[in-house]
Every structure is written in C-alpha cells, then in structure tokens.
C-alpha cells in the first residue's frame, strides 16, 4: 500500500536535497541558517512522527525563530540566457502545458480510478488519504514527463524547485504554523471565549440580532483562526444552535451550509489564511502583503451581505 507517509518521505528527501544545495550556495549571505531551516523541515517530514511530540514542539519554535529573524534567504539564481525562454517556448509550444496539466489530471485519475483498486486484498492507496497520496504520485509523474520533455538531468528539476522555494522562503512555513496556532487556540478554549463574548452582547429575543451575531461572529472567528472549519463548531454550538435553531426554529441544514459559507467570506479577508492570501503574494512578487486581500475585499463584503440576507430569509421559518 502506498501511504501518506511515503509521500512525506518524498517531500522530506526533496527538502533535504534543497537544504544541501542551500548550504553550498555561496551567493546567499545567510546560507548556514537557510540550510539549517530546510534541513530541520526535511527532518520533520522524514521522521516527524517518530520523535516525542515535545521535541517536535521545540523544532517548531526553532523553525519560527530562524524564519522570523531573517535567517531564511534565497541565493542569487543563475538567470536564464537572454531569449532562451522565448526560443524554448516556440520549440516546445503546447507540449509545455502537458506536465502542468498532468498534476491535476493524474491526481484525478488516482482519486477516481485507483481509490478502489486492491492488490492481494490490500488497497493500493491509503484509503484515508487518497487525494493527498494521489497528489504526491501525480507530482512525481509530472516531474518525470517534464524531465523527458526538456531533456535535462533530474538534478535540474530540484534546482528549479529550490529556486521557487527560495522565492517563497519563510512564507512556505506560514500555513503549517497557522494551522498549529489554530490547534493551540482549540486546546486553550479561545473559540469558546469568543462565542461567550458574542452571546453577552446579543438580545436573545430578536431574530435579526441573532442572525447578525452568528454571521458576523463566524466572520470574526474565521479571521482570527484563519479557517472556517475551526470557527464553525465553536460559533454554531455557542450561538447558532441555542439562539437560532432552538429559540427561533431555524432549519439546521440551511443554517449549517450558509454559516460555513459566511465563514468563507472571513477567510477571504484575513492574513491568517496564509496559503490562500499570503503565499500567492510572494509567488506573484507583489510588494503589498495585503494585495490579494484587498483584491478580494469587495467580493467578500458583498457576499457577506448576501449570506446574512439568505440566513434571515431562507433559514428562519
């Protein structure tokens, strides 16, 4: 069986290779701390579940310090020869799209085609993580096709991957770190405290006030946690269920769907949702860290108003 752990192993090896390349990159003034950062991250993927969790906690804080204090930099990558990219574009044409499209294509094939495939009574892909395992295999397959197409050594693919990884830098760690913060928030009861504060300020007899408290509470808590999934159970147990479902007889299926989608409006507005709002800023070389959030804000606010109206009209009897 191909497990998620094998995909982590692959990613760990890629990061370890990137760490070695980073250590040897003399164009980077911070090559030692940069190399250490990627090496520690590689370790987290190769053996993260085999060491005590407290040790991993220390590793998380070290990674955060290395990244947060400017220890993770990129080198100066060798620029491509002038005109070479245009020449290659003309030579390879639409074939260049094939490996890029193979990533989603092969993932889809794995999810739909290999999900139920069993060899000797054992499922081929780990059933609990079919999508992630398929994504890992798809990336490996697409890399192989891209290497054939461009006729370069596998090491070049790692070099190019490291170039992008350097460009993303510490932001690569942010989504994972924010999810970790979300778990700390859950363990420490932050959501319950916010829900309690929201209920403190809401007059219970008014359905409109309850709708506003639940909807805006979902947005606020999602913006704090960076994730509507984390906000939903807290806000719905604290405000939605007692006030809207039990007191004002709202339909739970409609309220659940619309409540979650109201939270998504908050996801569009917060830097805490780093993989959606901060990583693209870095990937697209935008100088304003809030550029993507600003581009989303008009859509998010208009949609928030629509969702609140829908909850009031459709979910309440």
């Amino acid at each position: 069986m191909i497990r998620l752990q094998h995909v982590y192993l692959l990613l760990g090896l890629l990061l370890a290779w990137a760490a070695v390349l980073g250590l040897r990159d003399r164009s980077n003034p911070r090559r030692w701390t940069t190399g250490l950062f990627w090496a520690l991250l590689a370790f987290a993927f190769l053996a993260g579940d085999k060491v005590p969790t407290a040790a991993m906690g220390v590793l998380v804080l070290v990674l955060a310090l290395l990244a947060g204090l400017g220890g993770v930099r990129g080198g100066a990558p060798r620029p491509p020869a002038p005109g070479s990219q245009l020449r290659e574009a003309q030579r390879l044409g639409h074939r260049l799209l094939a490996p890029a499209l193979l990533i989603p294509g092969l993932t889809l094939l794995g999810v739909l085609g290999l999900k139920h495939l069993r060899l000797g009574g054992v499922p081929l892909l780990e059933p609990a993580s079919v999508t992630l395992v398929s994504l890992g295999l798809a990336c490996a397959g697409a890399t192989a096709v891209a290497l054939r197409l461009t006729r370069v050594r596998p090491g070049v693919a790692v070099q190019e991957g490291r170039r992008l990884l350097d460009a993303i830098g510490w932001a690569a760690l942010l989504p994972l770190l924010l999810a970790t913060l979300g778990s700390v928030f859950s363990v420490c009861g932050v959501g319950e405290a916010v829900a309690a504060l929201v209920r403190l300020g809401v007059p219970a007899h008014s359905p409109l006030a309850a709708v506003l408290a639940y909807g805006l509470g979902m947005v606020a808590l999602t913006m704090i946690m960076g994730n509507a999934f984390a906000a939903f159970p807290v806000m719905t147990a604290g405000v939605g269920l007692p006030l809207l479902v039990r007191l004002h007889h709202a339909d739970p299926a409609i309220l659940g769907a619309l409540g979650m989608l109201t939270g998504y409006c908050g996801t569009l507005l917060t830097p805490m949702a780093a993989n959606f709002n901060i990583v693209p800023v870095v990937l697209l070389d935008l100088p304003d860290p809030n550029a993507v959030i600003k581009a989303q804000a008009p859509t998010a606010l208009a949609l928030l108003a629509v969702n609140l109206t829908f909850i009031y009209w459709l979910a309440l009897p």
Partner: protein
Amino acid sequence: MTGPALWPLLGIAVVVLGFAVRANPVLVVAAAAVVTGLAARLSLVQLLQVLGAAFVKNRFLMLFVLTLPVIGLLERHGLREHAQAWVRRLRAATAGRLLLLYLLLRQVASSLGLTSLGGHPQTVRPLLAPMAEAAAEQTHGPLPEPVRQRLRALAAATDNVGLFFGEDIFIAFGAVLLIQSFFRDQGLVLEPLAIALWGIPTALAAFLIHGARLLRLDRTLARDARSGP
C-alpha cells in the same frame, strides 16, 4: 456567572497587534501560540506537546512544495512565454473575460470535487496571471506597474473565490461532512445532500458578484492605461 476563561484571548491580541505593527508573521504566530498556551495555564512541556503534535498532523499543508520542481522546470523552459503568446493570438481574449472563464471553470470543477485542478503554485503563477497580463497589454498597451500588480492580485483572488464557493456544493467535501457530523453529535440527523444543496444560492451569488467585478475590470483597465505614463 462562570463562563469560559477569557485569558487565552490574549493570544488574539498578540496576533492583531503583531499584524498591525507589521512584524514578521512567522514570529507573530509563534508568539501568539506561546502566549495563548501560557495564558491557558498549560505547562511548558504541555505547550510544546500541543505545538509538536499539531505541526505533525498538519504537515499535509506543505505538499504543494512537491509541485515546485515541475513548475520551476517548465518556467525555465518558457511556460509563461508560451501562455502569453497563445493569449495574444486569441482576439476575443480580454483580461476580464479570461478571468471570468477561469472563475467559471474553477467553480464547476470544485463543485465536482476536483479542487486540485487549480491553485496558486500550479495555475495562477505560471499560467493565469501571465495570461491575464498579456491579454490586458494586447488590448490596452503597456500597463503601469501598480495596475499590473492589481491585475495579478485579482488573478489570485479569482482562484480563491472559485475554489471556496464551489467546493461547498460537493457532498463528499470536508465542510459538508463537518457540518453533518457536528449536528449529528447534537442529536440532529441531516442528509449531506440537503446541506450541499443549500450551498448553491451562495455559489451563484459569488459568481455573479465576482463575475460582475471581472467584467468591469476591462473598462477600468482602459481608463488606467490611458491615464498611465
């Protein structure tokens, strides 16, 4: 009245303050985790255990790194240049229409569960953003740098909107199952299909709202390009 303890809210204050003074987000987040844990009276070892266990559990969030070698290799061999040349040959392509088409495809694909058919490293950086820029320049001439940056940010925003407001319609998607299991634990049994169907009104509204903004984009681009240097 004994409610939940309010001290852990200090962690939120750290986050808000940290982002407000534009400190490095990684430091802000780590500091917030430590402050929250200590305010909730976790011991240092407990705090480290929570951090470590959560980090290991969420490692899948870094799997996007596996796409980087392919994308980097293709970029070095002219993927962006090819995508831009292709768009310039399509006369009907404007930046707004291109993003609108992407929004539609992304929403439909996500609603069928195909959420990995897009994404910032896979499609926005190598394809969508450069194609939108090329289409805008083909129609309006060279773009001033701030306009170019706004256009790129809008390409990323379009990917997010399409993903978020498509995936909730797919009944096997995590959000629908989370909603169902939450209400089941509270003694209310719901059909996943009933939840997924009520995602459709918002999905349509998201398409209309964001789509209208994208169609207006071509007009504002024309204005901005004229007023530019």
